[in-house]
């Protein structure tokens, strides 16, 4: 059985010998270098953009500006999925610092850099707004005339009688939490290479959404989709930042203007910070609760800072609404989730997308309530956690629910009820905290695969699932190998290549193992059926009487009457059998006014518990031990699952303790990995353990993010447990903790 085994990643040897063909490695004959001339002001009317001197520089092949898009026969300047408000390059209006204004294709990077200095820009600066709440106020600068209130999207959920709920409460607790802008910081930056040939566009790119890129490029250049080909080699990390459409339109536009030579566009580390960010969020959460710990009502308002263009915010804001409620039985729930335009780079998914901000809020809030009521935080949660068949705030009935098991696995792993090791003096204090999360996945989505079995017994899986380090291709190969009854060694996985591999929504939101895994099962079943049909004349039995397993087609009642797959193909003179597998879900249609309906095919569930040590003189927090748990349904590959769970915790520690994009007047001041810190080996807890919970008869569940969102609240709760300081603003820096310990506000000096 291939499923459930820790087989190494299919291309392990390439991974340790440095030969993985990342998109950043791509070299094509005659390839040009693309560079971007960007805005240095956050909001302005462009008066004049003169690139003529730059165009004359020897070695410059083409420069693209908004002027290239003027005219009916020209490509569309604006793009976006689903809202087309983002220009490929800014035209008469600049909306953030770092916004592309001109694209240069040159023979070398050095020439392109020189050309950059020759571009003349005149503009008239406008007042700008960087804070989401301020942007909603009357009189705030307006970014898009079509949205005079600067709201990209407002999602609402209304369930139960909220006023009656609060009236029935013994205590009402209201808190405000905030999370800063952050950056996904894949080690491989965004990269796209584009080439036009005979009216057809090919793009090689590091993207989590090849089919979205194809669709959007088709719309920009008014091409039939078969004339757009998107190829995605393995990525050097994605983490949500490479979802949707990012730099591909710029690469394609450059290659379009150049005409007959490919152009490669790769972001520098600093450019990465203006390409995509994580939404800064402010969350107000208010709960009504009885003295016995029963909830009566919850009201949540969330302000997502979406940056200058809608981009992913349009579909993430509703998802973020559901992820900020918490997996608890609450009869009356009232949520408003606002995505807001500001003069900052666009915001999008960041591993644990739109969950980590909300989970930080509701799980810190749970501890505040637990301490107020004098109830153990684990007990308050288990008392209220949703179970299978409960109704969620959307009104949908829940299935396969394991919040309690996840939380208890993490808590007991840590030793929640055992006494803490003594504080060892008065300077360093220890504390423990825990947290749980629930997350809907992308609903109403589709995955398709093709499986080919050749006469030599080799199996090729054609999928548009992006391999970005999660081991997605390996897991799918394991699923296919088991379903077809062949050893993993005969499996190869290819894709994504929109010309070769069938459509898939995207590789995001931990959906692939579940969605594409089920498509693979469907395809394998179809392939087995074809094998049975092809073997039937040879075995002289009806296909219905045959079984297909372990490399053989055999008579169900007489297993010794069997022939191997290769022989089935060989004796029929078949070169290869091909089957298509499909899987789709069509939930997700919530009522826009009430948020009622079925939001997701299944729920992502995870938890974490940790022990920290706080230096009470410096405020510095050390996470000594961390235990995480996620619900996996059925684990495909324990090693890869463990890497996801642990990787999430480490990634989450970055967002909890270190990561914050610093902004001054719209200018990012720390766009480098020295001032923007990622967690290192020494920041990792010495004791880091994880568990993936399985259930008999369950299907494969995604686990790409589940153990991440609980990290920040688990640590914040542990800090409170240790020193009594409640920090409601991420990251949990030493300085904030020290101020908390000393009872100071941020403004006291």
């Amino acid at each position: 059985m291939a499923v459930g085994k820790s087989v190494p990643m299919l291309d392990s040897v390439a991974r340790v010998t440095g030969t993985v063909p990342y998109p950043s490695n791509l070299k094509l004959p005659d390839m040009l270098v693309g560079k971007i001339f960007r805005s240095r002001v956050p909001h302005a009317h462009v008066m004049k953009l003169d690139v003529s001197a730059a165009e004359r520089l020897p070695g410059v092949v083409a420069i693209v500006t908004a002027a290239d898009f003027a005219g009916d026969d020209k490509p569309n300047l604006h793009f976006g999925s689903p809202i087309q408000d983002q220009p490929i390059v800014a035209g008469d209006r600049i909306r953030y610092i770092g916004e592309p204004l001109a694209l240069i294709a040159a023979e070398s990077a050095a020439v392109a850099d020189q050309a950059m200095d020759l571009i003349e820009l005149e503009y008239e600066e406008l007042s700008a707004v960087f804070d989401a709440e301020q942007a909603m106020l009357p009189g705030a600068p307006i970014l898009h005339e079509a949205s005079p209130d600067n709201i990209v999207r407002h999602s609402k959920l209304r369930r139960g009688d909220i006023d009656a709920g609060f009236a029935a409460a013994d205590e009402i607790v209201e808190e405000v939490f905030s999370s800063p802008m952050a950056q996904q910081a894949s080690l491989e930056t965004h990269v796209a290479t584009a080439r036009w040939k005979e009216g057809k566009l090919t793009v090689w790119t590091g993207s989590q959404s090849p089919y979205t890129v194809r669709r959007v490029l088709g719309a920009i250049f008014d091409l039939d989709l078969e004339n757009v080909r998107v190829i995605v080699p393995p990525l050097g990390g994605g983490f949500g930042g490479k979802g949707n459409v990012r730099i591909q339109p710029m690469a394609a536009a450059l290659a379009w203007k150049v005409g007959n030579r490919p152009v490669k566009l790769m972001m520098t580390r600093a450019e990465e910070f203006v390409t995509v960010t994580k939404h800064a969020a402010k969350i107000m959460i208010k709960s009504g609760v009885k003295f016995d710990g029963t909830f009566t009502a919850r009201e949540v308002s969330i302000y997502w800072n979406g940056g200058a263009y809608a981009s992913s915010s349009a579909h993430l804001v509703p998802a973020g609404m559901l992820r900020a409620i918490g997996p608890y039985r609450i009869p009356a729930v009232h949520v408003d989730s606002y995505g807001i335009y500001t003069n900052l780079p666009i915001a999008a998914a960041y591993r644990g997308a739109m969950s980590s901000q909300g989970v930080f809020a509701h799980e810190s809030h749970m501890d505040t309530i637990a301490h107020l009521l004098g109830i153990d935080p684990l007990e308050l949660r288990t008392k209220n956690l949703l179970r299978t068949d409960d109704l969620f705030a959307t009104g949908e009935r829940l299935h396969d629910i394991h919040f309690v098991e996840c939380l208890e696995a993490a808590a007991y792993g840590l030793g929640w009820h055992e006494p803490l090791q003594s504080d060892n003096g008065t300077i360093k204090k220890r504390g423990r905290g825990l947290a749980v999360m629930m997350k809907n996945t992308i609903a109403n989505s589709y995955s398709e695969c093709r499986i080919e079995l050749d006469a030599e017994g080799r199996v090729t899986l054609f999928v548009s699932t992006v391999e970005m380090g999660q081991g997605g291709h390996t897991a799918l190969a394991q699923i296919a190998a088991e379903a077809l009854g062949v050893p993993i060694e005969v499996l190869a996985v290819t894709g994504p290549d929109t010309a070769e591999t069938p459509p898939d929504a995207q590789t995001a939101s931990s959906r692939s193992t579940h969605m594409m895994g089920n498509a693979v099962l469907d395809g394998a079943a179809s392939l087995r059926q074809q094998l049975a049909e092809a073997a039937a004349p040879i075995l002289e039995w009806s296909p219905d009487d045959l079984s297909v397993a372990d490399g053989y087609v055999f008579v169900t009642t007489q297993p010794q009457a069997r022939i191997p797959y290769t022989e089935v193909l060989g004796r029929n003179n078949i070169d290869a059998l091909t089957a298509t597998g499909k899987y789709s879900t069509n939930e997700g249609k919530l009522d826009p006014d009430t948020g009622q309906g079925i939001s997701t095919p299944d729920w992502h569930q995870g938890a974490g518990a940790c022990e920290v040590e706080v230096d009470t003189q410096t405020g510095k927090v050390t996470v000594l031990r961390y235990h995480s748990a996620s619900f996996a349904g059925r684990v495909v590959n324990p090693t890869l699952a463990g890497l996801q769970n642990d990787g999430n915790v480490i990634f989450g520690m970055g967002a909890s303790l270190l990561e914050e994009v610093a902004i001054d007047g719209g200018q990012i001041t720390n766009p480098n990995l020295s001032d923007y810190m990622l967690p290192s080996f020494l920041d990792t807890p010495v004791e880091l353990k994880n568990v993936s919970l399985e259930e008999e008869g369950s299907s494969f569940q995604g686990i790409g993010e589940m153990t991440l969102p609980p990290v920040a609240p688990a640590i914040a709760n542990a800090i409170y447990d240790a020193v009594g300081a409640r920090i409601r603003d991420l990251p949990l820096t030493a300085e904030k903790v020290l101020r908390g310990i000393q009872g100071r506000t941020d403004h006291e000096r």
Partner: protein
Amino acid sequence: MKIEGSFTLEAPIRTVWDYLLNIEEMSQCIPGVSALETIDTKSYRGELQIKVGPIKAAFGGTVTLLELEPPHRLVAEIVADDRRNASQVKATFTSILKSLADGTEVTYTIDANVRGRLAQFGQAVAQSTAKKMAAAFGSCMQEKIDAGETA
């Protein structure tokens, strides 16, 4: 980024005010300023060179007087670009003068945005550079006032 500071000059408030408004004269006291020219009564064009260790910046830009409340308050906006470093400084400079028994206290607030490449070079460096320039400005101004050059 906000930079605040103050210095005291041994001169009556009116003298200090007049001196401050004599832009071409006054600008000679700002370290690194050169080629200042008057555009109109409210705006000026000039160049400013700054050197921090090996890093040199040469800004060219304009100063516009936005608010004048003689002899107490002056607000000016500065926008200057450094092409070589692909950087820009946009700053609002507010200066408040207060009469003391034996002189005038000048309090200043600079609300500055550094944009482009130099922005990541560091808040600490920018603050300290601005403060040093202000201190040098203060002592230069005192010298000039003492020398009666503003008469």
